[in-house]
């Protein structure tokens, strides 16, 4: 690869490492797997970088492009290492009684809300989990989410709606009609 091309790659794609890791982490639900997925995804991204037309000025494009690769890599990874990938990580610190005792009531409530949300998110099917992560955490537009997940905008819309309805219900709110 030309040095200038490598430089462009480093400018356009490397800055999205946090977003890449975050998505991989939520898809694999495991730190080790997420790290491996991200490294794999970056090597794939490097390979296909020639076909990527977004310039350095279009950071958003670079991010959506990279996240699409991360997503595909994560799914391939899970097919290959099925058993491990399905194990749900449990946050020991958050769930420990000893820690809970040291917290004032309001912090406890916050922890409870956080735990409930994490559990609910973990239990979503991955197609619904990924739209929540891409929308709420990464702030992608419907169009970008469609590009990353390879589905039409209408599907993005209905998946987001379904995902939120499930989270809402899982958080103990009354089930919504409709």
């Amino acid at each position, binding site marked *: 690869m030309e040095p200038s091309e490598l430089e462009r790659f480093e400018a356009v794609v490397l800055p999205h490492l946090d977003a890449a890791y975050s998505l991989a982490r939520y898809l694999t639900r495991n730190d080790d797997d997420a790290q491996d997925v991200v490294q794999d995804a970056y090597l794939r991204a490097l*390979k296909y970088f020639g076909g990527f037309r977004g310039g350095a000025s279009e950071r958003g494009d670079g991010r959506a492009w990279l996240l699409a690769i991360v997503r595909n890599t994560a799914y391939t990874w899970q097919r290959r290492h099925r058993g491990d990938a399905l194990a749900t990580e449990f946050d020991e610190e958050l769930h420990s009684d000893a820690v809970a005792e040291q917290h004032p009531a309001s912090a406890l409530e916050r922890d409870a809300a956080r735990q409930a949300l994490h559990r609910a998110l973990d239990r979503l099917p991955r197609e619904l989990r990924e739209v929540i992560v891409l929308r709420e955490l990464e702030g992608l537009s419907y169009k970008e989410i469609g590009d990353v997940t390879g589905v039409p905008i209408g599907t993005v819309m209905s998946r987001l709606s379904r995902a939120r309805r499930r989270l809402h219900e899982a958080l103990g709110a009354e089930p919504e009609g409709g």
Partner: protein
Amino acid sequence: MTHREIELQLDAYVDGELASEDARELETHLKECRECARRHEARVALSAAIRQHVPAFRAPDALRRRVRTAVRDAAGAPPSRRVLPPVAARWLALAASLALVAVGSWRLGTSRAGEDALAGQVLASHVRSLMPGHLTDVISSDQHTVKPWFNGKLDFSPQVYDFAGRGFPLIGGRLDYVGGRAVAALVYGRRQHLINVLLWPATRGSVSGPGVATRQGYHLLHWTTPDYVYWVVSDLGLAELHDFAQLLQQADAAASGPGTARPPP
């Protein structure tokens, strides 16, 4: 329209993805239908809860190094130690400052590198807020609507002022995540410009500022009162931004009452 269709539209509306004509129609419906209005509120609250409680993970430093090395190896580039290209140098500086943030947000107020990292995050928050549908979680020019909106969403209750009379109308507020914690973001307007004010409780009452930074054409002002850390960011001219900051500081000093706070220098 069926309830299911309305629900679909509601999500797109909350995300700022509904065409303006449909959005107006939906707004009319929300005024008439209490059930849908309740559902709308629940959706906004859910989004806020997700943003507050579900963190975006930060890549571990080891992974950063690993990816960089793997990419350089695969690209057949020499592992340049002596002369870093400017882009790589900037990337390393960024990685280093992010690592500092990871060490602990309590150090941010005191360390220069921490301040740089915070400025980066504040700027990112501002730029993100300018993308469609990201500016506000609560839209109101009424400070008495915006202030209570934050209740229960943050572990503090931010002061909210409206400076419409001085040419800086309040536009709304939202939750954001900066420096490793949930913060209040208040949005003000000035002609066609937008100003983001980010604030969170100060630690150990260390007063400082105001500091000024300019990045990518945006100006950032920040200061710390005994109660709060403030960051103000906008593409507005620096002089006008200083005027705005002064209004904010005066209002804040007046609101804090005697004995609890001094106006910052």
